């Protein structure tokens, strides 16, 4: 039972919860359709990448407070560079922005490893630095995005041979999310590097003794976090068509989804699927509360309560499993 809750059980539970929520949404809003689901996905996209960034870092035993600022900075860099440029130029902008995210993430990691200042302090400092940098790039929302980039998150995917009734429910944004996360996460999860990231989060001394280069692995984990952050920044620019220098509410949301998604904040345990499903749950709850016309202030309280209750319930079940 314990092993069940530590492994696939948690993720399965989250999927069930998401399914129930979708059914519930359909009940309170009978005409909730594919279009609404599409806009849910679009709203979730930047959150999901923030969550992915946070997940990698937390599994490695750290925390990244700079994730929202990172997204703001990469978003305005992309928007500023594409402003007035040709469509083809955007093909260069995307890899450049991803590289910026990767390097800034690595800088986070290097500062933590070299200065030995606690991660929470370094990334908090980075939060302010990146926020300032974003305002230097664009002092107000502006810039623009290439049309083909905006297209990537608009509408649904058309797969030949699959009836439209099905593809209506597969927004392009969802595919984009799955592809971007999969390209990084799946090879990582199967590699020695991935094992090392789990190892340093689980027990640093044992990892060192197992021959894991602890410092290097930590830097890489932050770099991957930065890469996901840059992806999040790009999706912000894609879906709004501009860059906004003020960070969105992504930091706390990312930590919340990581916890709800079954990743232990101490590191070493959990995966990426859980937190991603969790972020969908949290956004859908918000949608439902809006549909129910509940005061947004009350809605925030409800969201917080759900999080605590679910995590407590999980811990309780795991504990019972251990004593049996």
């Amino acid at each position: 039972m314990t092993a069940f809750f530590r492994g696939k059980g948690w993720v399965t539970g989250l999927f069930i919860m998401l399914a129930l929520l979708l059914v519930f949404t359909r009940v309170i809003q009978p005409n909730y359709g594919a279009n609404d689901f599409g806009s849910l996905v679009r709203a979730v996209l930047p959150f999901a990448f923030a969550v992915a960034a946070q997940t990698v870092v937390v599994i490695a035993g750290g925390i990244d407070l700079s994730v929202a600022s990172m997204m703001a900075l990469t978003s305005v860099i992309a928007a500023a560079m594409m402003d007035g440029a040709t469509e083809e130029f955007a093909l260069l902008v995307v890899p450049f922005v991803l590289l910026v995210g990767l390097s800034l993430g690595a800088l986070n990691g290097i500062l933590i490893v070299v200065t030995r200042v606690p991660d929470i302090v370094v990334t908090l400092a980075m939060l302010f630095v990146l926020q300032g940098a974003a305002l230097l790039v664009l002092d107000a929302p502006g810039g623009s995005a290439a049309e083909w980039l905006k297209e990537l998150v608009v509408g649904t995917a058309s797969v030949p041979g699959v009836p439209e009734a099905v593809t209506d429910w597969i927004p392009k944004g969802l595919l984009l999310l799955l592809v971007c996360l999969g390209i990084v996460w799946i090879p990582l999860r199967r590699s020695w590097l991935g094992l090392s990231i789990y190892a340093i989060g689980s027990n640093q001394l044992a990892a060192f003794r197992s021959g894991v280069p602890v410092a290097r692995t930590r830097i890489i984990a932050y770099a991957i976090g930065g890469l996901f952050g840059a992806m999040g920044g790009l999706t912000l620019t894609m879906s709004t068509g501009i860059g906004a220098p003020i960070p969105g509410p992504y930091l706390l949301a990312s930590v919340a989804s990581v916890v709800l998604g079954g990743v232990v904040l101490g590191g070493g345990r959990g995966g990426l699927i859980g937190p991603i499903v969790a972020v969908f749950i949290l956004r859908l709850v918000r949608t439902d509360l809006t549909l129910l016309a509940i005061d947004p202030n009350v809605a925030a309280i409800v969201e917080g309560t759900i999080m605590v209750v679910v995590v407590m319930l999980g811990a309780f079940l795991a504990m019972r499993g251990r004593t049996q």
Partner: protein
Amino acid sequence: MTTSPLLDATGVAKNYGAVAALRNASLSVLPGEVHALMGANGAGKSTLVKILTGAVSADSGSILIRGQAHEIRSPAQARRAGLVSVYQEPALIPDLDVASNLRLTRTPVEPFRQWVRELGVPDLDLGETARDVPLAIQRVLDLARALAIEPDVLLLDEMTAALPSDLAEKVLDVVRRQAQAGRSVIFISHRFLEIAALCDRATVLRDGETVGVVDIEPGVEERIVELMLGSRMEKARASAADADDGRQSGTTPRIGVRKLRVGAKLQDVSFDLHNGEVLGIVALEGQGQDQLFGALSGSTRPSGGVIEVDGQAVEFAHPTDAVAAGIAYVPGDRADALLMQQSVHHNIALPFSANPRSWGPIDTGRERDIVRSAIERLQIDTRAQGEVQRLSGGNQQKVTIARWIAADARTILCFDPTRGIDVRTKKEIYQLLRQLAEQGKSILFYTSELEEVQLVCDRVVVIFGGKVVDIMPAGIASEAVLTRASYGLPRDAKPASDTSAVNASDKLGPS
């Protein structure tokens, strides 16, 4: 022998700041040999191990493996050079399953499986998360993982300590065969029995230097103890006068410990602590003394046996219960006991003013008086009393003791209270403990500095492998006698030795 050594470390030195952990250590291990590495607490054994395994780098000296110089900067490099270690604590990543742990260390699976079976664990599930594998089995897996990559030199640090005897037998057997196959094993153990049964030679460290390499043969234990102690043998003091074991028998002891067991570490401990007595506890590191103090101070629950206070059996569910019974615990690490950012006053007042059983307002006048008298009594240097962390280590330790005097505890459990503090303060603490005993308080005193036993204690209990192996009056408890006893050897030396000091203490043995 003419064969060249597989591992040859010479002139290894390491300083931590001003402290020389290793001055001039050497270790030379021949092919096909099981080589014991020995030394008392603080002799530099663990530093040498850290250097060999790449956890720290040496300041000077050379390490040759198969005649080739190697710079070992990480466990991974040590591995590539052919030296693999099995550490005292399991090195499996707790959140990964066994198979992933093997992948992480790039260990071939089939040989690993074979070794695991050979070591007496027939049904291992590679999919199991390491955290869920029992501790003893984890150690076996560590060993199997090391054996599977066929290292030239295998370093085993207290390998058998946490193992049940059947598994330990298997381990020793495998180690022996490893040596027969022409590989070398460095074997670190506190158990002379194992060393005698397994090892070919032993290197002895003292004060950061290699002081001798001996062949293991019958009776070599004495020679090793001599080497470990060095000149300290001569300080053995003859005062057989107060050698009466049965002090205060007949009266009810303040604390009676009967067949106490705590987890796997503390197995069978019985002794009495009387009013007005300082009872010493002597043990090598990790023999169960931590668990003993944990149980007596109410922070660990015993798994068997009885603790009696004033003749009444008690069960402590929480340190509060122990404090309520008048038992105070002064931990070895002062940082565990003190509120470092708070004032001396606040720290001393904490136990009696913040009594968890009474929620009323604090009587500050009374508090001030009690604290002042405690400070005077212990001559605590109060120049920096605003924050305890700015006091010297010795003064901090005085504060931890002062608070319990102020709280009027009848029994004080001191766990290595003088570690790392200056000589003068040490003396003051000795005097203080003696004074407290004269006032009828009882004190349990664990120390890692054996000379303190005769300075402070009335009697001393020696624990080895979780069991009481000897209880003796302090008068005969010289460093030599205590060292032998703490390695599980009989307390009196055999006359085979040629050192006069041994013979002197030999006559004192009450056998």
